[in-house]
């Protein structure tokens, strides 16, 4: 049997990642991979065990491609898709500032992380934005924490009850 940390899943992805030659291709692959395999609300669990390791390898490659293609100014100010990082960040902050629903707020925060986690967005912009989004989300989540009974909370979250003993 394949080893835990050295298995066909990882080998196949390492080969695929090695074939990336442009930043736009790397960005597209990383975005697609995160959305499909690392989303909290994903439905595809095929890479549950290896997903984070593979993401890390794609990130490494995207970071190298970014360094090769971006000049210093773009490196500090632009996302790997070319968008202005601060404009993307401001949009997310504006959305969560206007938001009063914790479920919508968590989607804004989770989607921001999936779309922008470095090396997509420069860390200097990402970390400060992530902090502001997280702070607002924590406040919304902790307000009236016990307002809904568990039965209602399960429905709102959309879970199926398999067993309750």
């Amino acid at each position, binding site marked *: 049997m394949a080893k*835990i940390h050295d298995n066909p899943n990882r080998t196949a992805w390492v080969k695929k990642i090695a074939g990336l030659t442009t930043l736009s291709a790397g960005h597209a692959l990383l975005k697609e991979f995160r959305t499909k395999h690392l989303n909290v609300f994903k439905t595809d*669990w095929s890479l*549950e065990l290896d997903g984070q390791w593979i993401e890390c390898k794609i990130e490494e490659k995207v970071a190298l491609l970014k360094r090769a293609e971006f000049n210093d100014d773009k490196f500090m100010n632009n996302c790997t898709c070319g968008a202005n990082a601060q404009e993307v960040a401001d949009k997310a902050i504006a959305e969560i500032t206007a938001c009063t629903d914790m479920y919508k707020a968590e989607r804004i925060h989770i989607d921001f992380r999936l779309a922008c986690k470095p090396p997509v967005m420069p860390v200097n912009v990402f970390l400060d934005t992530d902090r502001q989004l997280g702070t607002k989300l*924590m406040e919304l989540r902790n307000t009236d924490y016990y307002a809904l009974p*568990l039965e209602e909370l399960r429905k709102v*979250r959309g*879970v199926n*009850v398999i067993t*309750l*003993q």
Partner: protein
Amino acid sequence: MAISSATKAATDALEVNRAPVSVGAQEVHKWLQSFTWDFDKNRTKYSTKYHMANDTKEQFKLIAKEYARMESVKDERQFGSLQDVLTRVDAANRVHPKWNESMKVISNFLEVGEYNAIAATGMLWDSATAPEQKNGYLGQVLDEIRHTNQCGYINYYFAKQGQDAAGHNDARRTRAIGPLWKGMKRVFSDGFISGDAVECSINLQLVGEACFTNPLIVAVTEWASANGDEMTPTVFLSIETDELRHMANGYQTVVSIANDEAASKYLNTDLNNAFWTQQKYFTPVLGMMFEYGSHFKVEPWVKTWNRWVYEDWGGIWIGRLGKYGVESPASLRDAKKDAYWAHHDLFMIAYALWPTGFFRLTLPTAEEAEWYEANYPGWYDMYGKVYEEWRARGCEDPNSGFLPLQWFIENNHPIYIDRVSQVPFCPSYSKGASTLRVLELNGKKHSFSDQWGERMWLSEPERYECQNIFEQYEGRELSEVIAEGHGVRSDGFTLIAQPHTSKDGRLWTLDDIKKIGCVFADPLKSL
């Protein structure tokens, strides 16, 4: 001889205004209040939901220089005792072998807690605005660095001077296979340093330190002494002298936010979640380490828990904070139910999963079984009988081909792992309060053992994505997982973990495990 004009000026100035030879406590206090750090841009990673008042006091009023002088004296006494007297009398080899194994867990795990507490109190320093309060947190940051070194040193000392070094020397390499690691990281890492700084303070200072350091750091010295261990009290009592400062810091954290509107919205929720998070792990694990990791008993864990957690903390300490709007956590009642049987349930599962550990476990002797039955009536019928059966089937003997995990499988008692606390539980063979709850979200099943953890997950699912060993290794054979997860000694084939502490007993190897053919299965798949 002529002197320079600068020297003369300095000499003349000293004649008028002599340099102080001592500083009074009030002068120091006054000086602290005049600190003028730039607080305007001061913040931690996530801004706390609370506003911390800028006139908060700090009870110890120690400046860093006095602090360093005091701590260096404590270190000299501690390391001097360990390296001189205790080494000469071969103290590490006089420890009861069962307790030697307990210290592998206690000191390695506490080291993680102390390490994370450095960051936690650093976050609080960043968040606070009052100079005195910052000074209190600064002292604690330095304490936690010291404690991290002390915990590491205990393991180093035991490994170098004592018996069976494996597990004392390199426990972390087994972290991917040992089921106790993940729960420990939940309380000591995630609980202490993730998210809101004040919520982290509630986890660390108000619950971890004010509630559980008495049972953990004080009680452990009693159990250690009773079992021939002179090193642990020397080190842990030195640690405990600093914990008072940390409890005071936790108290002042609450005082600093008492008048903030946010406190009425969030504080009791944060406290309830923090208490449940910490107790869910500490209550069973500490009870298990003390009672099952010792030969000579001190007092039943349930009594220790009742006195220090329920009465001292839940009643007196939280009661003192009542004037600031703090209420005793609602989950305290459920915790009390768990304090009686949860550690017995956990030991049974821990022994069944012994090959995945980094320490040796031993079934209770007949003498110990009498103690359990006397203090926990009903213990024999539930646990004692099963241990007799396991022993009769040769669970300690590598030639027997029997792992206690097989007993759970044969008798259809699946072991689950709580998604939030990561603590294993067996709902069909348990006297504790755990109940099985399984929920499915987008095709993935999650098991929980109580209502409080279920609510935490439903409220914040992305925080609890940690996979458990049944999910990680499903379909894999146990000896392969142990080998790849570094669960073997330096010879490459003898397991670090063993199901006995006998010096004459044979040690289990990877081959002994392999011939049993034990394969990991995820119990949630069959539901």
